[in-house]
């Protein structure tokens, strides 16, 4: 399996009243293609910060992050935007669909930004909506969809750009049990069938249970890294 994400001794430091506080402290992390990984830990442990660093939304103060061998920490903000567009899918806790666009348009928007032609876009939209089981809701606005449906559209949006991996920040936090379960089924299926790499930050036991690798963060450090199938790394 090829390495998709390679984070070398990264740290993120915030200054609180001139005292450095490590949100991420010397973390070393490899994620391989096709992994289904959960980042777990108590609130404030650095899960979201780590996802933001891996996603190129923030830069580490120390260390570097390579995506498919490309150092994203050295990229300019403009290059990073384009890199995110073509390589990283995002699913947010509160869905964050663009409210003025329909479900279909939300998904299509990303492909338009990528410059994909209309025929290809249409074909991918059909496939993605079939995979998330919302073919009949394509023309609904986010306000007309339930939380679970919105998050499924968010997953479709994240996958629209055929990313190297998908980062999902507490994707089930705002969902009821049935919706969360349904969402996890879809993501697990996509992971299994299309070998899409998923990395979640979560508190949700249901997500942790379904993950094949669980990384635990405490105070910005990885305290355990457990692979359910063939690897188990203890820090």
């Amino acid at each position: 399996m090829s390495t998709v994400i390679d984070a070398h001794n990264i740290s993120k430091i915030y200054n609180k009243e001139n005292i450095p506080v490590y949100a991420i402290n010397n973390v070393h992390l490899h994620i391989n293609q096709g992994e289904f990984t959960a980042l777990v830990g108590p609130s404030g442990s650095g899960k979201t910060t780590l996802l933001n660093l891996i996603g190129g939304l923030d830069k580490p103060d120390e260390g570097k992050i390579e995506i498919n061998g490309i150092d994203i920490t050295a990229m300019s903000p403009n290059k990073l935007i384009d890199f995110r567009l073509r390589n990283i899918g995002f699913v947010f806790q509160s869905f964050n669909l663009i409210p003025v666009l329909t479900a279909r348009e939300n998904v299509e928007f990303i492909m338009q930004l990528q410059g994909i032609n209309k025929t290809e876009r249409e074909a991918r939209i059909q496939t993605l909506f079939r995979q998330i089981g919302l073919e009949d809701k394509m023309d609904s606005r986010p306000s007309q969809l339930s939380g679970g449906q919105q998050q499924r559209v968010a997953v479709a949006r994240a996958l629209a750009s055929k990313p190297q991996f998908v980062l999902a920040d507490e994707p089930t936090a705002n969902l009821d049990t049935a919706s969360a379960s349904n969402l996890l089924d879809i993501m697990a299926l996509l992971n299994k069938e299309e070998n899409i790499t998923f990395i979640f930050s979560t508190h949700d036991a249901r997500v942790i249970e379904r993950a094949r690798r669980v990384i635990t963060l405490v105070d910005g450090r990885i305290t355990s890294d457990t692979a359910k199938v063939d690897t188990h790394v203890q820090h």
Partner: protein
Amino acid sequence: MIFRIAWRNIWRNKIRSLVILLSVAIGLFAGIAVLALYKGMMNSRVRTVIYSETGHIQLHHKTFKNDYEARFVISNPEKLLQELRKNESVKQVATRTITQGMLATTTGSAGVQINGIDPAMENKVSGLLQKIRVGSGFEPGKKNQVLIGKKLADKMKLKPSSKLVLTFTDADGNIISAAFRVAAIYQSENTPMDERNVYVQQTELNPILNLGNGIHEIALILKQDTATHTVAKQLQQKYPDLLVEPWQNLSPETELMIDTVDITSYIIIGIILFALAFGIVNTMLMAILERTQEIGVMMALGMNRIRLFLLVFLETIFLTLIGTPIGLGIAWIVTSYYHRNGLNLESMGKEMMSNFGFSTLVYPEFPTEKLLGIMGIVLFTALASCIYPALKALRLRPIEALRK
């Protein structure tokens, strides 16, 4: 898609957007109304200049206008008049004998320009007889009659049949005085002209001036206003010994006024839209502030700064441009109505307006020829208004915006 997002975004807060749209519409209407009024006033002023004062073109002896000396007459006037009447561009011709002099009555005196006219010809060029307010004009069989302006009549306390003395210099440099009786009092739309000009019959003035059949001025009315410069140029080439001047040279203050008003009009529109720009900036800033997280999401997903700027720019353009046709439409309807029916500005000060040579009944005209310029100013306003909100959006860091 950005186009679609921008369009839908402006309708997210309908009331706020409608307020801005209406502000733009009303601002534009106000600006165009001022422009239309100015244009109507200027057109009216130009028509007054041409059809009551100067005609389209005047011809004089080359040196006559230096000192208005009576001896500098146009030679061979009959032949010249014949040729001018045959000119296809010329509609009407009037000849004038002109001298500067003093009008005296028992109550006082005033400096005047004495115009010797052929009443029939003059009426066709300047409509002088239609301007008579008191009295009946030149009466056949009566000698030494004079038409004076109302302002002068009021100042000198003159009425029809009042006696006055005109003193001036003849062609040989002798000072001559002649008694006249007021035949009628006229009133034009140009009070200063009324105060300065008196009219006597050319057939009576010429012998006194010792001019024979000499004349000082030929005023022409052309068939088309637009032909003025071309015809003036042609006539100047044909009659190099004469001074041929279009109305713009004869009334340079009117030409200057038109130019000034043109510039002023754009400044007024600019000021109105500048004030509106603050409203647009405020609306766009509120929109950006409300959508900080959404913008953060877009940036996180891969929307670059150019596209983000385009989004903010398009929203501003839509806000501004939707109001534009509404404003133009209202302006067109209102100006068309008043263009047909006239707008009476008498209550604003009849005397003040006529002192500047303006009629109080104005026919505003939609400034079609300025639409391109207006649209340019509107687009510039939209562009200028979007810069600050767009910069605010561009400065957002996705990581911080997502936390909002």
